[in-house]
């Protein structure tokens, strides 16, 4: 039998802000995977409950900032009976190490999973050097 991996619940981590917030609500950190290919840096974030019109992605001063806003109007009129997780907006930033072509950043949101492709600029791509 192939290895069966059982899923464990990850507690949602709350965002620790450097600045004080003017909004009294809580913001959570989306879980993220980051991987690099030869041409691009890929960031995958899980933001359940966020639709594609509520995502904001920015790169400023080498910092990638992703924000996802939750539409909590769907929760109106609902009376909670039993809860295991809390809801809130999502926010996370990453400092980018390699140079990114900011005009070519592509994003895709599918079933609560946001996939970002950050293409590297030409001079940051690895090159093989021929030995003479």
């Amino acid at each position: 039998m192939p290895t069966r991996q059982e899923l464990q619940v990850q507690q949602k981590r709350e965002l620790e802000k450097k600045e004080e917030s003017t909004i009294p609500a809580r913001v959570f950190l989306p879980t993220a995977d980051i991987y690099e290919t030869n041409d691009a840096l890929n960031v995958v974030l899980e933001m359940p409950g966020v639709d594609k019109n509520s995502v904001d992605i920015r790169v400023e001063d080498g910092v990638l900032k992703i924000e996802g806003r939750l539409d909590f109007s769907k929760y109106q009129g609902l009376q909670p009976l039993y809860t295991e997780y809390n809801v809130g907006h999502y926010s996370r930033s990453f400092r980018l190490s390699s140079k990114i072509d900011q005009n070519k950043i592509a994003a895709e949101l599918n079933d609560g999973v946001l996939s970002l492709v950050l293409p590297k600029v030409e001079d940051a791509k690895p090159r093989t050097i021929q030995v003479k």
Partner: protein
Amino acid sequence: MITTFADPFDALLSLQRELESRLASDWLEGATTSRGPFPPINVFQQGDDILTLMELPGIDKNELQIEAKANTIRISGKKRVDYSNDVSVHRRERVSGDFDRTLSLPIQVDPDRIKAEYRDGLLALFLPRAESDKPRSIKLK
């Protein structure tokens, strides 16, 4: 309640507070069984009926099974996180694997009228309370 200066952020905070206060609720206590507490579930009341929400981002609908019998609901499936082998992974936080969870609700639901919806990584189950389970008002003669 109607407030003239409805603050959307305030609404979120009060929702979060309400969710927090129900963390200690014994509503499903001892009634959620089977293996592992994944996916995390929130249970809401909507009139007579029950609405459950589960956070299940990035699931293939074909790999998700929902079964209902009497007052028991089973949610099982597989969550995949696959990347090709030639990439270098810098950070890995998303979890993957099999999950199987059974809920036994303390009320009777009508299994034929259960509706399931998967959108934006949230699985919503509408569980209508069975007619036979609804309280009846008794008229005094």
